[in-house]
């Protein structure tokens, strides 16, 4: 109790310094008078009485000092004093200070920006009860992305038969058609949920009540209820509590709003906020047949590990896989190789984690390296400044400052620098993170999938992270100068008459710092090169078509299957498009490559036997005349489709891989393939080169092409236009032409093939772009570090250089001396960096399976780039050495 009281009293005293100091001065004055009076009474002279009183007291200043120590918060006083000193010293060299803060704030800002994205996508727990217990299920079809999608009947089986979960529920995502008060219908994201959804997930109502099990009964009138999100309540009802009991129309059914979720709950998928939840019983037919598709989430029983849960779930899941495989209309044998993964879901469903998790971790590692480089850079700058301040330190040591006090002061300066940089860095992070989000949400999305919406919050976790980063950085770059200050030897420094001596160790150490920067830059640059090569490979290598100068136009899907005059108008359209100046050719296609859409089926080839379990899907696409010419896919044998194929003989074109698989060594032309489901047989009239179709990261699939128009029906809503000029410049003309010929099928989207490809490889672009940025920044800093070191060396040795030149040394030789220094430092850095980069590459390969790590090119390029940067940085100091004027140099001291 008294301790607390004392702390409080000290804290109050800390803020009443002036007042208390005056009070104590007065008290001491009275003390001395009282003592002097006593002394007078003992017969001393007035002067002697006063002198003795002062001696008895032990001096006024020591008394004040001791008093202060027990009165306020002396350590805080010390820190305030140190801070004041630090800011004064920063103010004396504003350019230097700003440089350091700029460098550090870039580093801290970049780290914080990436971490805040990582935090939002992967770490931030759902605002629900014990989110750490939540897991989700992912169904894996070999080669496809993992998918959390299970039919209601399997959900019931899982829920009722497992022993590892304390609860299980799900949500069936839906785009609801919603209208309020008979107003216009709008599309809102929401979901059908089982009655236990909110209680299992652990959400408490923000207003009213949430959906409960008794609401979710098939055929019950009670099921016609809805729970809405806080943002819906806010935007549509302005937080009016009378929303409870209001009727809205959802998918043509009137439902009553019974509650609002808390503000922070926006569903279970980061990036896809949902506004509306309706009991699953409102989908009576799908519920009854068990076909309603759900994303499942479950809560682990206490003490059950994810591995145990997965083992049990895989057993339970066998029945589902068997069901699916047995009932598959295509008899796909791969279905039996499906498996189920149980994954933690404390941060919600994993969709974005699956795509961006590894790239973000890689970026986090790179940006940490960058910050390390920056710390080394700043450390070497501070060290140079410390040399300049050696005399100050020496004087302070001589005057009795403790070495610990000096250490503390230098560290305070470093931490003050990093605190300022942290504040600036948070600002940068805010901008940077918005930019990252802009890239992340730019990806392609299949029709019906809502756009990603990411709300980055600078939450406590992010703030804590950036503080920790700043603190670590401050200690890291501050420790070396601090120890140097602590070890400063007053005698030597003072004796050096204004010029501080430099030990061999210190010289080597300075070079070591620069070499480290060079090494780290090599790692960053080669990582950037690696990711850039990966991106370039994805964009260009083996994609099977020429992506430049291709305009892609999507028409309203209603064009599919329309009959009558449509084929003729399509033919007219293609002719008109090809008449536009700058257009090389145009064609129709069912699904453009890398659009996220594709079709596939099982085929049987004439004269080819294969066991059922070896059968695999064949990709299928419908294409128009001159399609392959337009795409730039080589025709290897036979011919393209022409208008004559729109009726009559059924013909097909296959790609090389398909021909190789089914007709190895034989001529595929004239042979026949039969489609399993329809039983139709097609004659192969052409063979074309392999081209990527659905997924850029996978090798081209076996592909069969059919005519996009057949027997009066069109099966293609996309038009591809090969241009001789920039495709965007022809957009308006192409639109106009389409409007003239096919006015009844509006254009819904125009893009270019390069843009479409870029949308499909957002994570790779993100990594390549940022790692490139980090690499350049790192190289720049290392160059500045090297330049600084060399300039400093030349300045220190100006005397020596002057003497040597006076004795007849050639200027070139002097420049060479500096250059050798530069070369040695850079070479050590390159050696360090190459070793580290090789290690990092192995690490990266373990994380990203498809990186082109066997290429030595990025590393060589990185090292070469650093060499050039090093040479450039040493140019000025070399020149200065060569141009040293001996007379001036000797007068210099």
């Amino acid at each position, binding site marked *: 109790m008294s301790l607390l009281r004392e702390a409080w009293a000290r804290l109050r005293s800390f803020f009443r310094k002036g007042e208390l100091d005056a009070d104590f001065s007065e008290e001491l004055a009275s003390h001395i008078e009282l003592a002097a009076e006593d002394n007078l009474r003992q017969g001393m002279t007035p002067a002697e009485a006063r002198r003795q009183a002062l001696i008895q007291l032990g001096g006024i200043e020591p008394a004040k000092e001791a008093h202060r120590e027990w*009165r306020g918060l002396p350590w805080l006083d010390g820190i305030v004093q140190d801070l004041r000193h630090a800011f004064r010293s920063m103010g004396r060299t504003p350019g230097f200070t700003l440089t350091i803060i700029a460098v550090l704030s870039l580093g801290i800002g970049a780290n914080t920006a990436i971490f805040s994205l990582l935090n939002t996508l992967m770490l931030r727990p759902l605002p629900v009860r014990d989110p750490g217990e939540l897991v989700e299920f992912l169904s894996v079809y070999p080669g496809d992305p993992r998918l959390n999608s299970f039919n209601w009947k399997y959900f019931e089986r899982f829920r009722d038969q497992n022993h590892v979960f304390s609860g299980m529920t799900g949500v069936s995502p839906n785009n609801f058609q919603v209208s309020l008060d008979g107003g216009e219908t709008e599309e809102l994201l929401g979901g059908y949920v089982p009655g236990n959804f909110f209680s299992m997930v652990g959400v408490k109502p923000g207003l009213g009540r949430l959906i409960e099990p008794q609401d979710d009964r098939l055929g019950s009138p009670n099921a016609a209820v809805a729970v809405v999100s806080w943002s819906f309540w806010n935007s549509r009802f302005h937080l009016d509590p009378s929303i409870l009991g209001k009727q809205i129309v959802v998918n043509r059914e009137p439902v009553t709003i019974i509650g609002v979720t808390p503000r922070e709950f926006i569903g279970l998928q980061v990036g896809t906020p949902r506004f509306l939840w309706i009991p699953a019983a409102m989908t009576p037919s799908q519920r009854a047949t068990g076909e309603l598709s759900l994303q499942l989430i479950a809560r682990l029983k206490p003490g059950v590990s994810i591995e145990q849960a997965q083992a049990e779930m895989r057993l339970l899941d066998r029945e589902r896989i068997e069901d699916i495989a047995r009932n598959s209309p295509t008899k796909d044998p791969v279905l039996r190789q499906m498996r189920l993964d149980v994954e933690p879901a404390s941060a919600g469903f994993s969709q974005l984690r699956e795509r961006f998790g590894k790239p973000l971790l890689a970026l986090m590692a790179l940006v940490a390296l960058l910050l390390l480089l920056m710390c080394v850079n700043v450390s070497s700058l501070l060290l140079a400044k410390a040399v300049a301040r050696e005399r100050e330190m020496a004087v302070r040591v001589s005057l009795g400052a403790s070495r610990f006090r000096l250490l503390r002061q230098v560290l305070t300066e470093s931490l003050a620098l990093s605190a300022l940089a942290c504040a600036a860095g948070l600002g940068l992070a805010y901008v940077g993170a918005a930019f990252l989000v802009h890239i992340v949400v730019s990806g392609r999305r299949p029709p019906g999938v809502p756009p990603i919406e990411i709300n980055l919050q600078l939450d406590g976790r992010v703030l804590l992270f950036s503080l920790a980063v700043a603190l670590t950085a401050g200690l890291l770059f501050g420790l070396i100068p601090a120890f140097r200050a602590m070890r400063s030897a007053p005698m030597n420094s003072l004796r050096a008459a204004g010029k501080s001596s430099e030990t061999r160790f210190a010289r080597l150490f300075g070079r070591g710092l620069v070499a480290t920067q060079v090494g780290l830059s090599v790692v960053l640059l080669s990582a950037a090169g690696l990711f850039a090569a990966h991106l370039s490979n994805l964009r260009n290598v083996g994609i099977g078509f020429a992506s430049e100068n291709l305009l892609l136009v999507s028409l309203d899907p209603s064009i599919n299957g329309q009959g009558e005059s449509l084929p003729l108008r399509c033919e007219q359209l293609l002719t008109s498009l090809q008449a536009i100046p700058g257009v090389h050719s145009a064609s129709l296609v069912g699904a453009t490559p890398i659009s996220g859409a594709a079709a596939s089926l099982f085929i049987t080839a004439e004269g080819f036997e294969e066991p059922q379990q070896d059968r695999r899907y064949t990709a299928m696409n419908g294409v128009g005349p001159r399609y392959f010419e337009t795409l730039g896919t080589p025709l290897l044998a036979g011919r393209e489709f022409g208008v004559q194929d729109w009726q009559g003989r059924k013909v097909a074109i296959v790609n090389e891989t398909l021909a190789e698989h089914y007709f190895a060594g034989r001529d595929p032309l004239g042979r026949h393939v039969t489609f399993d489901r329809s039983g139709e047989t097609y004659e192969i009239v052409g063979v074309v080169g392999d081209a990527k179709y659905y997924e850029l990261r996978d090798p081209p699939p076996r592909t069969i092409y059919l005519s996009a128009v057949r027997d009066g029906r069109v099966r293609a809503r996309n038009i591809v236009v090969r241009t001789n000029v920039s495709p965007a410049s022809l957009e308006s003309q192409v639109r106009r032409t389409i409007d003239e010929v096919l006015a009844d099928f509006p254009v819904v989207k125009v893009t270019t093939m390069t843009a479409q490809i870029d949308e499909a490889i957002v994570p790779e672009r993100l990594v390549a772009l940022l790692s490139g940025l980090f690499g350049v920044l790192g190289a720049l800093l290392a160059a500045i570090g090297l330049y600084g070191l060399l300039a400093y060396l030349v300045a220190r040795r100006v005397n020596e250089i002057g003497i040597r030149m006076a004795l007849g040394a050639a200027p070139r030789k002097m420049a060479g001396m500096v250059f050798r220094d530069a070369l040695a430092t850079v070479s050590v850095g390159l050696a360090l960096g190459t070793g580290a980069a090789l290690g990092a590459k192995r690490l990266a390969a373990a994380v990203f399976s498809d990186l082109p790590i066997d290429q030595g090119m990025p590393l060589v390029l990185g090292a070469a780039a650093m060499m050039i940067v090093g040479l450039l940085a040493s140019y000025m100091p070399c020149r200065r050495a060569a141009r040293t004027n001996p007379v001036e140099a000797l007068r210099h001291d």
Partner: protein
Amino acid sequence: VESLQESARVSDPKLDLLQGTLDLMVLRTLESMGAMHGYGIARRIEQLSNDQVLLNQGTIYPSLVRLQNRGWISAAWGVSDNNRKAKFYSITKAGKRQIKEELANWERLSAVMGRVLAAGEGGA
């Protein structure tokens, strides 16, 4: 420089007192004598200890601040017997309670010290 400071410390002839001991003396003095100013307390302790305790009179003030911060004594400006303005300290209720506790502690400690030191002598 450093060795000079060291020797200054070593040559200190006064008893090196634990902070708590001086605090206890101050409390006890105020309890028995009533309100006193800093000089008075210092003189009193000097006289009673034959100048063995205080390094100098100034060292009384940290103790007074400490006790005040803990709420065991209170201070107020007043006028001394010979009409001088001075700050007077007096013990509070909490301070009186504290004395009992400290005394008990002190007795325990000195008993233990006595035993340990006596045993050390006997064993040697």
